[in-house]
């Protein structure tokens, strides 16, 4: 067990994602109570008091984001659920969309009530097929049951939802690119200021939260902020859905309570490294976070402060386990190919830098590397740090700097000997698992 559960607290069955099962689990009761007994400000106050952080990667306090939206500004507000889960290694929101879509919908209704939103959106990535069908079916169920539309529960509260499918761009998971995409334009991120909570979708105040973040709202309102804070640790209340993949015996989505020991999670709960190999490193939260070696994770608990102290981040919860014998040069090549492919091309450092880094790493892998290439990669990464419109330039830089800082010797070896220090493989041959 990986600590107490908040989201994955029910057995998954063939019907557990349907409205009837959700209502039987006590679903939509919280919404009823919120709509009939609470004022919008009370909801925001409760969510702020819970201290819940964004689960999309940046860990921004939800209450602070919501507080920017002024209820009496006379403008329409919008809410978007960010289900464009494109960070490599991350597939946790998919679990919610597939198995608990009504939890998301109830949470969004509560959030819409808190922020006085008339129209809300779910931006779901185009490659998600079953999640999309399940979510769309859930929306139709919810409409039929009167949870969306006019006069919900006989009150004045009205809310409509649109599920919008993306077309496969990684950058559209960035909040401002996401709303630009919803507006029907090319998914380019926008410059800040203005913040999206001031001028977002259709130039109106817009709150964009990750699917998992929003799903926590109904839970917080059901149990109260105080009870919620009892989960996790002081600075990171609650739980995190972790999608673990790579060279691991039991990959999948796990709900991990913040503060749970990271090594125990990997070695015991997830069955340890594939093929009985030693752990080389992990990518802790999507490939944009810095890697942590086996030594780094000893004694580290899985929460934001501890992960930062260890030199990385919780990120998006997309954990990738990398076994001993994996070539880090090849790994970086795969990462940089992804960033090059996904750079939107709007601003100069990322547009030119990603391709440059990709061409350099390709050349190293081909055996034509030069000793100064390693420093060039670091220099390009640093030149992207904080100079781009969105965070993608920084993210690619973190990944590169993180890997080079810890495995510089592998790069030097590859350049000097024109071959990998570790056999050049990314795959591990499966053998007997270490833990029976």
């Amino acid at each position, binding site marked *: 067990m990986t600590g107490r559960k908040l989201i994955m607290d029910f057995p998954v069955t063939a019907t557990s994602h349907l409205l009837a099962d959700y209502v039987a689990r006590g679903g939509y009761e919280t919404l009823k109570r919120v709509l009939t007994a609470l004022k919008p400000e009370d909801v925001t106050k409760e969510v702020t008091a819970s201290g819940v952080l964004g689960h999309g990667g940046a860990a921004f306090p939800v209450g602070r984001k919501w507080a920017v939206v002024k209820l009496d500004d006379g403008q329409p507000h919008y809410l978007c659920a960010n289900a464009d889960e494109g960070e490599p290694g991350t597939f946790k929101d998919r679990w919610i969309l597939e198995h608990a879509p009504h939890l998301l919908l109830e949470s969004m209704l509560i959030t819409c009530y808190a922020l006085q939103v008339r129209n809300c959106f779910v931006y779901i990535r185009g490659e998600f097929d079953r999640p999309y069908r399940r979510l769309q079916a859930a929306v139709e169920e919810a409409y039929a049951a009167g949870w969306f539309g006019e006069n919900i529960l006989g009150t004045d509260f009205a809310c409509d939802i649109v599920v919008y499918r993306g077309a496969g*761009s990684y950058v559209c998971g960035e909040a401002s690119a996401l709303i630009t995409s919803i507006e029907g334009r*090319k998914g380019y991120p926008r*410059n800040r*200021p203005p913040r999206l909570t001031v001028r977002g979708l259709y130039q109106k105040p817009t709150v964009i939260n990750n699917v998992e973040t929003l799903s926590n709202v109904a839970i917080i309102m059901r149990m109260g902020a105080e009870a919620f804070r009892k989960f996790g640790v002081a600075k990171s209340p609650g739980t995190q859905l972790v999608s673990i993949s790579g060279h691991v015996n039991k990959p999948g989505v796990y709900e991990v309570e913040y503060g749970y020991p990271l090594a125990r999670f990997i070695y015991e709960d997830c069955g340890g490294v594939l093929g009985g190999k030693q752990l080389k490193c992990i990518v802790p939260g999507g490939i944009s976070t810095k890697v942590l070696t086996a030594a780094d994770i000893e004694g580290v608990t899985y929460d934001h402060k501890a992960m930062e102290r260890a030199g990385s981040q919780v990120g998006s919860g997309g954990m990738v386990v990398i076994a001993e014998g994996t070539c880090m040069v090849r790994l970086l090549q795969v990462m940089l190919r992804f960033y*090059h*492919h*996904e*750079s*939107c*091309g*709007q*601003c*100069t*450092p990322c*547009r*030119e*830098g*990603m*391709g*440059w880094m990709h*061409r*350099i790493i390709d*050349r190293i892998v081909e055996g034509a590397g*030069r000793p100064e290439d390693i420093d*060039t990669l670091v220099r390009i990464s640093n*030149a992207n740090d*904080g*100079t*781009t*419109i969105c965070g993608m330039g920084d993210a690619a830089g973190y990944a590169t700097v993180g890997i080079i800082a810890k495995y510089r010797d592998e790069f030097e070896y590859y350049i000097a000997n024109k071959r990998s220090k570790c056999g050049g493989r990314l795959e591990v041959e499966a053998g007997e698992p270490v833990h029976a």
Partner: protein
Amino acid sequence: MPDFFINGQPVHAERGQTVLQAALAAGFYIPYFCWHPNLSVAGNCRVCVVEVEGEGGGGSWSDIACNMPVTEGMRVLTDSEPVREQRKQILQFILLNHPVDCGVCDKAGECMLQDHHYAYNGEPSVSTVPKVRATKYFQLSDRIVLDNERCIVCSRCVRFTREVSGSHGLGIQHRGDHSLVRAAEDGAFNTDPYSDNVVDICPVGALLSKRFLHKARVWYLQPTPSVCPGCARGCTVNLWHRKHEWKLNHLDPKQNTEIARVTPLANPAVNGPWICNKGRDLAALFERPRAEQALLKGRPVALGEAFAAARRLIDDAGRPVALVSSWGSNEELAAFKRLLGSRFSCFVKSDQRPAPGEVVEDDILIRADKNPNTATAKQLFGEAPVAFPDGADLVLVWGEGFDFTQLPRGARVIYLNAYLAPENGHADVFVPISIQTERGGHYTNFDGHTGSFERLFAPKPTVAHAEDVFAKLATTVEVA
């Protein structure tokens, strides 16, 4: 009251101004590519980065000036060491895949990338990997070719078609370093009557005018301010022609008296920084075959002989009528009024009408009246349409656009025209006159703004200025 500080100096900023606007207004230099005063902020070139000194012990931070609102008391550094370093890095990025083919690029000499490169980088490309190849000489429209290798994807041209011309004719295809500016649909950019402005606003040599392609190096050219006579808007323009010190005596002397290109001369009251495509093609308008010989019923004569014959006709006429040109300058129209206005019944004539296929009028710049000075002409000679009174026995036609079959039966004709036309030989007296590029003057546009044009080229000695012609034809001695 100083609102904030740039490099330690107090600077006043208007409400809502960004740091870049306030800094440029106060005379500070901040480089930029994608920012343009008349377009929205894109913030994608990242070269206008500035440093903001931290307050209360906080560390300094840097961000782009074009999207940074001025806040009271903020302390901005435009030329600190970190700023120079960041700009150098941005320029290295930009030059990474730029072909640096300045030697064959029309933009060389007025290229923002050249300027900023020498100001902040000045070093050869740091990349050792092959450059990304892209299309060259891509036909973006009938008038414009695009070199995608030179393009720095600043999106100025795209924003122009969305925010100024409204054609939405351009967009960016693909992403990353494969981004390509393309017409939204095939031929979508052909129908934009303002398309050539994107050539001016392109900060590099990516968008090129086919008319000007490889015609001249810009440092051999000089601009002369002028007024576009294409319609009643009267946009102020620069007519570019070969500098006197670079004139070609033997190789191709015709180039010395040709208009190489036309660019807008920013004038917020009239046309802003834009002109339409018709204005770009003024050379074709001015460089039609010229009439250079005075004629009496088709017989070549000297100018003086033609003047004498014309004066006799005027002296003998019972009811002379004059059709005044709406292409005359304010000075010429005033001279006609003063010297001949009392002798003739005067009507204002429309010299040019919309050509087939031309955009007649829109709500941006183009006006339906295709003459530059109808306003002054009508003010001096009235609004009445051309109507010959009974017994009209002499018609003085000044300029083009009059159908000679409409002449009253038996009337004699004095014709003043600058261009070769069949009518020239039919007139009783024909006098060739100079055109706008051969004299200075003023036009007043439809809403009362007066623009001045200057002389570019000397007229042929066999050609007269209209103003001089009127003085010669005046039957009474001018009273000062």
